[in-house]
């Protein structure tokens, strides 16, 4: 492999790692907004725990990405540079992770869709040829297993609940469904790494659908009709929400560079 090919391979790996880091960070960051506002103390603690799990996962991915980038650069960066100093068009998170929290039905359904995706994704990623990514996937899988359990429990309770909870769930599903497709459409960097480092997302789409169908059946909910699908997150094309999120999340580091606790 000549050095140009190595650089391209490296870029694919860095982009793939950032995609996973950004998705976990965005979802964790959104969930953290529930701190102090949960419907009951036990659920407040549960959802903030989940947010911490996700941010922890993102840290593992960011640290690895920084390590990879630093090999070829004189100016060394850290996980913080990647999280706090990149602009919106450099973020590669799935669009679903930047959507607002809405009500409890919207949040738990959003989390269910995302966690189920993470579950099947990481279950394949543990076989990645990249040892570090495989290791992060294995560790994260235990946390994600609980996230799927907790969120699907709420989907069932709210779906098969009162008239109000059911209509809120149906509303949530309709508004979230346009963001599902992106989870299973590979970006260029995923395609390029398909047979070694990354996974084939086509392999997990059916499993994800089956899981959603089985939980929805218990929740007396249904999958929406075919509709227009949103796309672009993995390539830095985001919804209007990301700008506001970053403005708040990155303000301190940009206003006071190098600020530490």
């Amino acid at each position, binding site marked *: 492999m000549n050095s140009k090919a190595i650089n391209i391979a490296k870029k694919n790996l860095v982009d793939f790692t950032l995609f996973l880091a950004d998705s976990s960070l965005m979802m964790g960051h959104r969930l953290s907004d529930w701190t102090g506002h949960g419907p*009951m103390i*036990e659920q407040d*603690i*549960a959802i903030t725990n989940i947010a911490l799990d996700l941010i922890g996962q993102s840290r593992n991915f960011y640290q690895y990405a920084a390590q990879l980038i630093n090999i070829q650069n004189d100016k060394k960066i850290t996980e913080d540079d990647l999280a706090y100093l990149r602009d919106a068009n450099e973020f590669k998170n799935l669009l679903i992770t930047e959507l607002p929290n809405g009500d409890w039905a919207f949040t738990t359904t959003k989390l269910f869709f995302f966690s189920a995706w993470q579950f099947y994704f990481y279950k394949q990623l543990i076989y990645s040829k990249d040892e570090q990514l495989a290791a992060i996937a294995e560790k994260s899988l235990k946390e994600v297993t609980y996230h799927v*359990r907790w969120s699907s429990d709420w989907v069932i*309770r709210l779906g098969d609940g009162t008239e109000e909870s059911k209509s809120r769930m149906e509303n949530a599903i309709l508004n979230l469904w346009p963001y599902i497709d992106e989870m299973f459409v590979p970006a260029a960097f995923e395609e390029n790494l398909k047979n070694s480092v990354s996974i084939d997302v086509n392999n997990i789409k059916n499993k994800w659908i089956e899981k959603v169908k089985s939980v929805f059946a218990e929740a007396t909910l249904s999958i929406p009709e075919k509709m227009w699908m949103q796309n672009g997150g993995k390539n830095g094309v985001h919804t209007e929400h990301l700008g506001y999120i970053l403005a708040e999340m990155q303000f301190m580091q940009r206003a006071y560079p190098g600020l530490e606790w």
Partner: protein
Amino acid sequence: MSSTEPLWEVFIRSKQGLDHKHVGSLHAADAKMAIENARDVYTRRMEGVSIWVVESKYIHSTNPDESESLFDPANDKVYRHPTFYELPDEVKYM
């Protein structure tokens, strides 16, 4: 919401422990939710490896007013303690 949900007592067995210890209580709609809430609230810092939850209404306890008659009589009956038999050397470390 929690005023209409039953109260549950939570017991956790720690990693090195043999018995479940009472660690607190929480509100939940049913047993499944009680277990998940207990896991989220009471095992954040690796406090345990096993959880029991019991609805508080099923726990019955002694009345403090009755403590004297229930417990004081046992105080001065030293003949009930297994401390008078001298172990032979051969089984000293039993």
